[in-house]
């Protein structure tokens, strides 16, 4: 019976191809947009998780501003504005933290300016960051050419630049030994970082493809001691147990901040879980909007099914006269509605596969389509089909055979 119904449904949809296609369009758009958005979010999360693996697990990051992070509850939020407003972290904090016995290395990252000059060209999309030589130890990017500035050379005007900058200014040439100008002062390029796979969305700030590192002392001097410290990375003595280090860092900073907790001490994975939490929230939000089109698509199906039922009143009458029970008529129209929505779902999945490859080939985005997402899309379209076909199918099943046979 069911196979017959499916065949009949496909048959009747084929007789009105355009109508069926247009009806399915709502579902197609809904499914493909939800799948695409979820796959983008998934890709983003994968990139972030990849960064967790690249970073050492033995570092603690101190950030300006209080980041609310409920215990594993997911209710976390990242204060993006913290990146752009004046930092609450100061030079004194760095000095204080360096005194800690459990801190193997303290690496401040101070924002100097976002432009640098080389020869005639002015670069505006760079982060000029003042940091200490230990930066090379906590950095997930290796120095490809040359080397990082060392403790000995801290007073020298040395700089380390990211690969994007090297490429922009010097093209294919190796710029080690060339000079770059920051706030009117010349720095000799000492090393060039390797390309990070971090991609576009580096919320965890571990992507330094477009950064220029200069020694901390110079940063201090160039900004007249008004340092804007983005974060301080502290490397613990015992990588297996960072908690004592975190406690000590907190205590020290509370005392230098006069008891105000306007900073956050985070393990790397906490930082990243916040970031991926944000991605999750955004993905969920946009998916929700896209899901509305699924709802509209479902209503479209219901509408067309109702039209179809009244157009085929006579057919229903004939079928009933031949002995179809109400249930058999019901299932016929249910299957037809489901065929519409499942067809739409499948085309939608194909469309999102096309979008997927398009994005992979033509953009830097790396969406990931997972089986659960596809399964969910199929499930949603099946249930939409059932939900929105029930009313028309019931209408068909309840028709009085005599009146239906008269065809009105």
């Amino acid at each position, binding site marked *: 019976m069911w196979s017959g119904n499916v065949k009949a449904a496909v048959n009747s949809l084929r007789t009105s191809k355009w109508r069926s296609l247009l009806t399915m369009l709502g579902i197609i758009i809904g499914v493909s947009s939800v799948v695409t958005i979820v796959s983008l979010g998934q890709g983003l999360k994968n990139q972030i998780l990849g960064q967790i693996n690249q970073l050492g697990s033995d570092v603690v990051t101190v950030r300006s501003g209080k980041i609310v992070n409920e215990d594993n509850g997911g209710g976390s939020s990242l204060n993006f504005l913290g990146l752009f407003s004046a930092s609450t972290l100061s030079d004194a904090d760095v000095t204080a933290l360096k005194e800690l016995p459990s801190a193997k290395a303290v690496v401040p990252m101070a924002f100097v300016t976002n432009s640098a000059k080389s020869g005639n060209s002015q670069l505006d999309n760079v982060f000029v960051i003042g940091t200490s030589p230990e930066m090379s130890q906590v950095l997930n990017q290796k120095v490809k050419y040359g080397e990082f500035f060392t403790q000995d050379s801290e007073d020298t005007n040395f700089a380390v630049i990211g690969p994007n900058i090297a490429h922009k200014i010097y093209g294919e040439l190796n710029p080690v030994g060339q000079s770059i100008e920051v706030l009117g002062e010349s720095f000799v390029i000492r090393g060039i970082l390797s390309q990070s796979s971090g991609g576009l969305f580096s919320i965890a700030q571990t992507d330094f493809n477009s950064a220029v590192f200069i020694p901390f002392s110079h940063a201090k001097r160039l900004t007249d001691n008004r340092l804007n410290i983005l974060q301080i990375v502290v490397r613990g003595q015992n990588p297996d147990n960072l908690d004592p280090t975190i406690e000590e860092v907190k205590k020290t900073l509370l005392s230098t901040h006069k008891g105000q907790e306007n900073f956050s001490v985070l393990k790397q994975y906490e930082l990243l879980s916040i970031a991926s939490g944000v991605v999750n929230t955004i993905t969920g939000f946009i998916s929700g909007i896209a899901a509305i089109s699924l709802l509209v698509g479902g209503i479209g199906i219901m509408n067309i099914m109702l039209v179809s039922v009244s157009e085929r009143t006579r057919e229903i009458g004939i079928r009933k006269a031949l*002995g179809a029970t109400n249930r058999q008529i019901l299932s016929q129209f249910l299957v037809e509605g489901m065929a519409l929505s499942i067809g739409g779902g499948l085309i939608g999945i194909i469309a999102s596969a096309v979008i997927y490859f398009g994005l992979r080939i033509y953009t830097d985005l790396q969406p990931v389509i997972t089986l659960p997402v596809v399964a969910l899309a199929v499930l949603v379209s099946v249930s939409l089909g059932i939900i929105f076909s029930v009313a028309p199918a019931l209408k068909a099943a309840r028709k009085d055979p005599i009146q239906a046979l008269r065809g009105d």
Partner: protein
Amino acid sequence: MALIELQEVSKLYGFGDATTLALDEVTLSIEKGQFVAVMGPSGSGKTTLMNILGLLDRPTHGPYVLDGRHVSRLRSNQQAKVRRDRIGFVFQSYNLLTRLNVLENVALPLAYRGMTPVRRQKQASDMLERVGLREREYFFPRHLSGGQAQRAAIARALINKPSIIIADEPTGNLDSTDSKVVMELFADIHRQGNTILLVTHNPELTRYAERVLYMHDGMIVGDETTAIGNMARGARKTYFERRKVSDDDIVAGVSALMRDVPGKELAAKSDSEKGRSKKSTSKRRTRKVKR
């Protein structure tokens, strides 16, 4: 025991003073294997009788026993199964499903029985062979002539080996040649022991029947047994002009109703049929004009 037994079966439409009596205490029994023709002017209740016998409609009063089973009060799903297994319909306008080919149309009642596709196609194919449409199996109804379409419809009616075949003016849309082919097919089916109930306006067709019922105003006014091949005597006299409705008739109709149906019971019954009233009063009058 007769195949079909009706005991004072009535069918009322509408309610209150707008009630129409489509069937007026019809008592009828049809034996298995009979070829019965039903004649009568439009609006005489032929179609209502067919609908009740075919379980498409329920009588307001009176029992209907089909093959020893009380069927008039069954639930609609049960009635659908009885229709499927025991009743074959042939309509004036063929009523083949346009989207399905001839073979699928004929096999449809088997599908509702839950038979596998292979088996039902085989049976449908055999049945088409019997009505001479084997080579038209994969045609669609729109590609068939009227006579061929009606023969396909007859094949569909026969496919479940029904107890009774109900044919409502099966030759109404056909020319005389096709009519003859179709009626010969019915005669053939009858010779193989099937029970056939034929509604017709054409007195010529009573030649195929062995019993002719005449209906008028919801009553069976004549029941004639006739030899196959002879036109029924009553059929010659049947007049087909539309009757003029006089004021007397209307008054007579209403008083007849009041006499026939006890007041309270009528009110209760007809309340449930609210809404149909206006439509059916006008219908009763216009039906005489329409056909």
